[in-house]
């Protein structure tokens, strides 16, 4: 642990971006308010001072334009890190992301690559107005040609952003906004794993929780509470929603026989649904209970005074744990 520093997730993304920009002078950062202000969450704070206005600049408030020009820049040999200010504002760019960014490598039969990272602060729990708290990752995970990842710790944030920038494929980088200020150690010496590798973040024997992004912290809380009552839960941070590292989940389920999948997104036709389906397919004889999904309800994200009731918390997770273990 010689080269380890403590920092928040926001600072870790910032540090990772700087390192990616140092490593490759074709890396550009742009989006709304990212330059002087450093973004509304200050994730890009200070990058303008270090790299100047040719490497980081503000974009007009036009998300399709942000992603569309990132595509054109990729065709010219640049690697763009485009910020969408909040996940609720990504939809004007949905066309460029799904019909263009995701398909151009295939359309060109490999003559073009698309090294574009789209950074998206996502998820709720910050008491925000409408369109500032959602979890739209399933739309993108469903689209062939895209990669979708989300870090849950500062160390992962620092390394996964660099891995995303280095990828020749387009990457949707979902940042758990309510965890931006959560601190933890960052080991500057080397990445913990590939950006699509799931990680067992707490070992256990009786039940597996597979989760990602902001719900990793909540799931670990639930596992700690369960341990006090003598229940041993294994928690897997999926880290990647597309592709999903099923092997790590399957190995765990073979050991525990119980799986609960936790995410903030509304559960119907979600990433969690895909995990449930595949585990049923690949580990059917190892399951002692149906896979249970814990997530948001299938309603528009509610007004802030109701979000506590919408979002899964440790108690809701433990209710699902009890149901699974009661089978």
């Amino acid at each position: 642990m010689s080269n380890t520093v403590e920092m928040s997730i926001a600072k870790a993304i910032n540090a990772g971006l700087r390192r990616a920009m140092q490593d490759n002078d074709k890396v550009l950062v742009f989006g709304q308010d990212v330059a002087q202000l450093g973004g509304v969450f200050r994730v890009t704070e200070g990058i303008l001072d270090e790299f100047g206005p040719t490497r980081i600049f503000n974009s007009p408030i036009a998300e399709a334009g942000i992603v569309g020009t990132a595509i054109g820049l990729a065709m010219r040999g640049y690697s763009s890190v485009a910020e969408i200010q909040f996940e609720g504002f990504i939809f004007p760019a949905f066309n460029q992301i799904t019909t263009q960014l995701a398909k151009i490598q295939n359309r060109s039969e490999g003559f073009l690559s698309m090294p574009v990272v789209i950074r998206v602060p996502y998820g709720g729990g910050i008491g925000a107005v409408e369109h500032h708290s959602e979890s739209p990752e399933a739309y993108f995970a469903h689209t062939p040609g895209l990669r979708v990842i989300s870090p849950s710790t500062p160390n992962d944030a620092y390394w996964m952003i660099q891995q995303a920038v280095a990828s020749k494929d387009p990457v949707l980088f979902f940042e758990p906004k309510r965890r931006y200020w959560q601190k933890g150690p960052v080991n500057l010496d080397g990445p913990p794993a590939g950006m699509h590798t799931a990680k067992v973040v707490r070992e256990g024997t009786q039940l597996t929780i597979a989760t990602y992004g902001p719900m990793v912290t909540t799931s670990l809380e639930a596992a700690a509470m369960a341990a006090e009552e003598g229940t041993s839960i294994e928690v897997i941070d999926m880290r990647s929603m597309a592709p999903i590292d099923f092997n790590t989940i399957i190995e765990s389920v073979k050991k525990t026989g119980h799986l609960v999948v936790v995410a903030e997104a509304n559960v119907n036709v979600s990433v969690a649904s895909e995990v449930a389906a595949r585990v049923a397919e690949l580990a059917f004889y190892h399951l002692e209970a149906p896979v249970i999904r814990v997530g948001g309800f299938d309603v528009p994200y509610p007004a802030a005074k109701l979000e506590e009731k919408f979002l899964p918390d440790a108690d809701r997770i433990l209710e699902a744990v009890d149901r699974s273990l009661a089978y």
Partner: protein
Amino acid sequence: MTSQDRVPMVQLLNPEGEYGVPSAYAEYGKYIEALKEEDFLKFYRDMARMRRFDYEATALQRQGQLGLWIPAIGQEAAQIGSGYAVGHNDHIFPSYREHGVAITHGIDLMSILKMLRGVNHGGWNPDETRFHLYAIVLATQTLHATGYAMGVKFDGKVGNGDLENDLAVITYIGDGATAEGEASESFLFAATNKVPLVYFIQNNQYAISSPVATQTTVPLFQRGAGFGVPGIRIDGNDVLASYAVTKKHMDDAREGAGPHLIEALTYRMGAHTSSDDPTKYRSKEEEEYWKARDPLSRLEKFLRRQGINQSFFDECEAAGEELSAYVRSETFALGNPPIENMFKHVYSEAHPLIEEQLAWLEGYEASFENAPEQGGVA
């Protein structure tokens, strides 16, 4: 025809094939004066080639050899003229009807037919050809062109007065596509970044069946002005106007003048695609009006006035026969692509789902190879 037609436009060759540079457009004359006879012949040769290709592709579609055809008859002057105005370093971002522009930049026309037959989605190398892939979702390419031009500017390849290394970008859109929000976002990004980009709008009067008045109440050459992209209207059926005006604005863009827009007033003499029926939404009279303004016969009249004799036109006719024969035989020879093609290049880097599903499909297909014949009586 409509109030829009009374807006002044750059015309250097009138429908009778008479050349003249009105004083208001004197700045464009020098680009024509710099041309040699061979250049005019090249324009005609490729416009005739483009039309012949269109007839042949239409026939192939009717014979079931192509899934779809997208005719461009009537737009030869707009495409060949502007295409030849694009410099040897410049990049072109087409929509999906720019077969003529493709001809001017050496794209194998079979690349286009392969796509419309359903063999692939494009697949030519845009870095090598500088002619980018067709964009079927309208106006998406305008933003790619803008981003590319931003990159050109970041690379310092603009405004050095170095024609060997400096470059500009041109993007083609139709009148219908100007209504897409992404076209407007493109104008904005191009203007605020002052990029070397020319928009070439082929106003062929229709978006499938919807006349241009459905898309705009102001002439389209004015569409960019509010964003900071000045525009000019040309007679899109005049190959000399198309060439000269595009050449000037590409040169200006390359020298750092920022984006510019050209609206080429033309007419889609054929259908939107082979699935369309124009008799349902436009009149014979209107078609006759535009037939009298046919870009190909206009250039022929000009060349004959210049003393070009019949043997040249005979040669063009013979070249057309040859092109038709080539396109036919190559199309008949196209096989179906191997199944693994659909799994290729979805990602540049390895992806477990792709690998797993390809392996499954190959196993599934192989399972039929040694299977007994079905349907026999036991």
